[in-house]
């Protein structure tokens, strides 16, 4: 059986592509780092891949607002390819800046059920400036929620991951927030509501969401930065008895889940 192929989409200012690439390779995928210009020009075909990953960074400097220029580019220059990719049931993940892009394209939280006859991607939520009004880098505890998300199947109930962003405060109108709860689209919540446990002031402590199918997933924390246990900020505090056999970091499971999903359903 061939390995699932991941297209890691790059553009000017993308900067978490190498570690995202490492994560997917460790998870057993074949990867390609592809500049969006090469997708737009048709040199690279999205249909040749089973997973689309939009890594973190500052696409186009996050000028105007985080992720907006890449979102516009994707929406308007890759319209059909993107629709086809999603319609084919292929998983999409956006991490940090990638999450910001998915939210601004409207792929997350996705088209409301009431509108499914005439699907049109519109932005219905946003990732606003942190309440602290500055970029912050810190590790946070996440509570894994009951959700259809294919990336978090069987993952630990509590996961510790780093965040590093200035614009990560998830916010949406009340009806959208209610819809997310009804559909179990919240995948991760910050474990506590107070700053800095909730590092950015997100509504309902939301750290990551998926669409109703569970195949499109976006999150502010960085699972690709926790691939081995030595990335954990407290690894020197663990004693031999607390030490598990695995050298794997908790972030890797998210990438493995995607690979396994593709193997089981798409290959």
């Amino acid at each position, binding site marked *: 059986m061939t390995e699932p192929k991941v297209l890691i989409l*790059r553009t*000017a*200012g*993308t*900067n*978490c592509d*190498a*570690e995202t690439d*490492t*994560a997917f390779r*460790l998870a057993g995928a074949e990867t390609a780092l592809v*500049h969006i*210009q*090469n997708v737009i020009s048709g040199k690279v075909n999205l249909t040749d891949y089973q997973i689309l990953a939009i890594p*973190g*960074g*500052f696409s*186009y*400097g996050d000028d105007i607002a985080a992720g907006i220029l890449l979102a516009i580019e994707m929406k308007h220059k890759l319209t059909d390819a993107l629709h086809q990719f999603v319609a084919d049931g292929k998983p999409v993940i956006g991490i940090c800046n990638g999450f910001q892009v998915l939210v601004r394209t409207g792929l997350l939280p996705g088209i409301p059920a009431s509108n499914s006859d005439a699907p049109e991607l519109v932005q219905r939520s946003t990732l606003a400036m942190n309440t602290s009004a*500055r*970029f*912050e*880098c*810190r*590790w946070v505890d996440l509570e894994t929620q009951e959700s259809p998300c294919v990336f978090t199947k069987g993952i630990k109930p509590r996961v510790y991951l*780093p965040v*590093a962003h200035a614009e990560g405060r998830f916010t949406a109108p009340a009806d959208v927030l209610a819809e997310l709860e009804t559909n179990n689209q919240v995948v991760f919540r910050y474990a506590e509501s107070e700053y800095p446990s909730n590092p950015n002031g997100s509504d309902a402590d939301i750290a990551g969401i998926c669409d109703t199918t569970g195949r499109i997933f976006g999150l502010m924390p*960085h699972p*690709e*930065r*926790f*691939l*081995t246990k*030595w*990335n954990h*900020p*407290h*690894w*020197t*505090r663990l*004693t031999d008895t607390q030490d598990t056999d695995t050298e794997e970091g908790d972030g890797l499971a998210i990438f493995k889940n995607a690979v396994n999903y593709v193997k089981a359903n798409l290959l």
Partner: protein
Amino acid sequence: MSSTVKEIEILNADDAELMRISREGTLSLNLNEMKTIQTHFGALGRNPTDVEIETIAQTWSEHCVHKTFKSIIRYSEDGKAPEQIDGLFPTYIQRATEEIAKPWCVSVFSDNAGIIEFDDTFNLVFKVETHNHPSAIEPYGGAGTGIGGVIRDSLGTGLGAKPILNTDVFCFGMPDTPYAQLPKGTLHPKRVFKGVVAGVRDYGNRMGIPTANGAILFDARYTANPLVFCGNVGLIPRNRCEKSVEPGDLVVSIGGQTGRDGIHGATFSSAELDDTSESLGSVVQIGNPIMEKKIVDALLQARDRNLYRSITDCGAGGFSSAVGEMGEPVGAEVHLERVSLKYEGLAPWEIWLSEAQERMVIAVPPENLPELMEICEAEVVEATVLGTFTDTRRLQVFYEGEIVADLEMEFLHHGLPKPVKQAVWQSPKHPEMASRDAATRDYTDDLKALLASPNIASKESVIRQYDHEVQGSIVINPLVGVANDGPSDACVVTPVLGSRKGVIVANGINPKYSDVDPYLSAAAAIDEALRNIVAVGGSLEKTALLDNFCWGNPDKPDRLGELVRAAKACYDIATAYGTPYISGKDSLYNEYRDTTTGEQRAIPSTLLISAICVIPDIRNAVTMDVKVPGNLIYVVGNTYAELGGSHYFGIHGFIGNNAPAIRPDEGKLTMERLSAAINSGLVRSCHDCSEGGIGVAVAEMAFAGGYGMALNLDNIPTGDEITADDYLLFSESNSRFIVEIELQHRDAFENHMADVPTGYFGTVIDAPDFTIKGKAGHTIIETSIDALKFAWQTPLHS
């Protein structure tokens, strides 16, 4: 000659006229240099063009050629007979590296950054630079382009290294400076602080490079001349470390467009600031990190496909320096009208000298040009063929078909007369402070005051604004401990994901000791940088150093005398420890002059030592936070009564005279033994003793780990008789550490350290209480880790 190029009338100029030309053109050339230029062109029978004289001024600037470090110095110490030093750099820096002769040094002092071996596939490059003058005038832009510039140094080393880590050290005026006391024309230290941090944050984070090491210091004398040190480590394939230029290669510029920004940066930074400097807006560059990221993305692909033969960055002096340096061994011909401009209207010399950011110059064999252009197109980066490297040994610059500069490479690079400078050093005598044991038996408030002093206080509010996790490589964070807020001694990264081979980066800087003796200040900076390396699990054996001198005006004999003292220490201590210098830089003329009052302010003589160490297995690294109640606390290394320049004396208004001496034999043995103990798993946590001595070190370890301590000063090993509790607690003697040892490893640890002074002096306790008993048996510190942490975290909280 066209109207765009001016002839500079120097052939018949007298001395006063020559100096007027230098001053009014911001050339920063002295009379001797102007006369050398006059003689050279006299022999040619013509005046130089503006393009030519500007090219020479940039190439000969202190910033580019470091003439002070190469000059002949007549130096006299404490009234003794003078000695002659033929260049501080060759005598004390380069010679140390040559004598130490580490086989893992791949390239030192020759390229844009030093190169050392990493593993079978990769080497590491490391460079630290300063961007002081620009940051004084425009903190955000100055600091941002400082980090942007040093990243390009890595990218311009060998055939280009991938940037993997940033380090930043800042020196500011006191944050509580009253506005009325600000020197005329200077920005408030708080404004400088905020702008510099934001500049480094926005550039480094956008480039996707972890900023994981640094320091922030405060002293009133930095108010008019803040210091901004920016460093970058890069990873480079072993077979991409050499460069050459062949005649016929194309001169290709890649990256941003050229504008009028940053003109005269090199010469501007080679002079003192004064109260009118703030109006020199055009000398500060404008940064665009996304442009630089695109250059990295494009160039590393081109490097891996072997499309170019040489590369350098456009830094100080812009194209004039970049093309001048690359073409030195062969010759070069450049056509300025081909340069891609931000806007019209630049004179040829402005195009040639502009320090517009995010530009690199590469030497491309013509047959590789199409493939290079293809990569640049895919990455949406502009690349322009500016000319050709030749075999004329001349630097020839054209504008719209007309030759505007025609200089011999030999004169440009070797025509600079070697200056002779005078230096004196007179040991100062400061009032001495006695122990306060007679006056008090409680030092709790002193400890809290030390923790709250701005140099020691937590820098978390700054550190959190930097992304330390990007690239997924960090294994020891700058903030460690149970709540991720303790001050790590150094950071550790694994630049090759999946490999256990690690890189430690640390720094040492102690300008306060310069008030006593710059020799001791430099020695302590080296010792501290090495302690920080050892404290997380590194070894002296695989450690290289970088030296960055920030000094006052070296044309003044006393300032230069301080520089000589520091340089001597650099040689003595590095050779004793066996740690070579691989790169360095100096920023002189950090002085401010009030043009109305004539008042002159110099910074404290400041040497930053940056250290880089390769470790075979990051699993052996340790952190400074205490781990388990019941574990034993030891001090390693002798304490002496050395409080001159200490923070303890400082908070009581004294400088004193006994700054920490350096005993490299003792220090080397201590560090070697401790490094081995850590690497054999005997040590649970380790922290070096630096500012604030043992008192501050144990407090930081306790609150970072979330456990209290019960300690007793009775068993602290001392090198001389010390009975005073405050001296024991707060002396800043070099080469000392505090370690946490598990009971089961007690004998093994003590046996291992048998020939090093080591004292067991207390335990970690399962309570927040923090107590220290003095020599006479009574409690001299009684508090809680929460109170200590509060004192430490509050001052620079926001």
